């Protein structure tokens, strides 16, 4: 079994109008090399589901987003994403499902469990209900009879994740202390593609101490893309931290996206790494202290 793919093989599995889940959180462990490839593709009208960071901003500026299902968009160290803000303030994102970050988890978990919804009280008393007319209520069938919010399953066509290490069979390791909700993204999707800092032989996974960093099964993974520095400018703990200098440049580029696009997107992945200072630079970015 060999699931190693190149970027074009991943893109060939994505079509206009699909619902795409993106792993990571804010400016942390985002599959940015795949996101940049989508930005320069002809794909359009995507529904993006994410704990949002610069993945959302880039896809907005590249006009790929029809609908956004999200709780927030933040660059962590820089609280707000200028590209996302610009798109929102211009009314460019036609459909929104803005929900509590825990409701997002619930929607992914419902999809992962092949359930139509999961109940919660989260959302009552807020505009999350008013703005999302598709979210319905459900009454507990037990004696309490409590009325609850039925958070609908968020079923994904494709999930895109970035991990530290993978093998050709689709086994993955996330060495950072927080795997975020990557496991649920993988389970909620029909197909999952991972980019990985390094590809190793399956025999190198054999240590049980290492296997604790494996958060979801290989049969959920349909393709493995070797992409060193693939999360840059977001972090990939412990390999590298958030490239704050680059995120500042990115933030300033919301009004001059064509320049940023030429300089950092409309080039090959190797050219991108050269443009940001090479892997020696990326690997030298120290861990972000919050």
């Amino acid at each position, binding site marked *: 079994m060999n699931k190693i793919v190149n970027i074009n093989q991943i893109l060939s599995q994505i079509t206009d109008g699909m619902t795409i889940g993106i792993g990571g*959180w804010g400016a942390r462990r985002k599959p940015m090399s795949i996101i940049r490839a989508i930005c320069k593709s002809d794909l359009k009208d995507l529904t993006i589901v994410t704990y*949002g960071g610069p993945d959302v901003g880039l896809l907005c500026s590249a006009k790929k987003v029809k609908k956004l299902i*999200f*709780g*927030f*968009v*933040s660059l962590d160290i820089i*609280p*707000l994403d200028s590209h*996302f*803000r610009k798109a*929102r*303030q*211009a*009314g460019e994102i036609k459909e929104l499902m*803005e*929900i*509590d*970050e*825990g*409701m997002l*988890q619930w929607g992914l978990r419902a999809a992962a469990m092949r359930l139509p919804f999961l109940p919660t*009280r*989260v*959302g*009552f*008393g*807020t*505009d*999350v209900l*008013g*703005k999302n007319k598709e979210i319905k209520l459900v009454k507990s069938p037990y004696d309490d009879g409590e009325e609850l919010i039925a958070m609908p399953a968020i079923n994904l066509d494709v999930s895109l994740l970035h991990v530290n290490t993978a093998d050709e069979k689709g086994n993955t390791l996330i060495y*950072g*202390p*927080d*795997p*975020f*909700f990557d496991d649920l993204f993988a389970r909620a999707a029909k197909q999952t593609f991972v980019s990985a800092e390094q590809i190793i032989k399956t025999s190198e996974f054999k240590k049980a101490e290492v296997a604790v960093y494996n958060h979801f099964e290989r049969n959920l993974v349909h393709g493995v893309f070797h992409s060193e520095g693939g999360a840059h400018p977001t972090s990939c703990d412990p390999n590298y931290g958030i490239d704050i200098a680059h995120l500042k440049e990115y933030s300033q580029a919301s009004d001059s996206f064509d320049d940023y696009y030429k300089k950092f997107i409309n080039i090959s992945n190797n050219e991108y790494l050269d443009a940001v200072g090479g892997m020696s630079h990326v690997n030298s970015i*120290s*861990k972000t*202290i*919050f």
Partner: protein
Amino acid sequence: MSTSSTTLAELCISIAAKAWQKDGEILATGIGLIPRLAVGLSKLHFNKDLLMTDGEAFLIDQPISLGQKIPISSAEGLMTYSRVFDLLWSGHRHAMVSPTQIDKYAQMNISCIGEYQNPKVQLLGVRGFPGNSICHKNSVFIPNHTKKVFVENEVDMVSSLGFNNNTYKPNIGVVVTNLCVFDFNGNKNSLRLLSIHPGVSLDEIEENTGFEFEIFSESISEIPTKTELKLIRNILDPSGIRENIFGAKK
């Protein structure tokens, strides 16, 4: 930074730190610079039983100094986002947050300002506010007390539950601003003045608040003790980053 007289930042940190004093063994989360320092001071001085995180993924036994350049070397537990959600849904947390807008019902907004489909100002999104507000206690820190924050009408995008809901009620702790201290324990959970910061007048507070509030006390806010100041200045924020929060204004 003056080493003798107390600054506004230090005053706010000291008052805010007392928010968790009687909370026992719960997770204290301070979002933003002053709330985060307040959690640190609370942990060191007012409530040693508090759980706190490094702001990323670990529970830590001692606060991290602001501006510290090396990662933490020891943790007392793991607190991934998944576990934060699990924990907060059962109510074992008290956060301090800084909404962009707050109204007379204690509804808060961090999502966007203006028309929803085409907002004038896009902010963060509702983030965890809906869940936090229905599940656990929240205190508030407002660094720029104006009518833009304490809005006359309801907030533009209701991100957190307020007292106007018929079924659920929020649990609001203290509301610390750059001018004064409030809570929401007035008649029918109205905003209530508890103390006024040194050098601030009641008129100034009224002029900068978009709705009426009760006056429980016009006493002057309690300034930090020498011990508290020492912890803030020497341990929690030795490089004085806290003073940037109010800019040149105060």
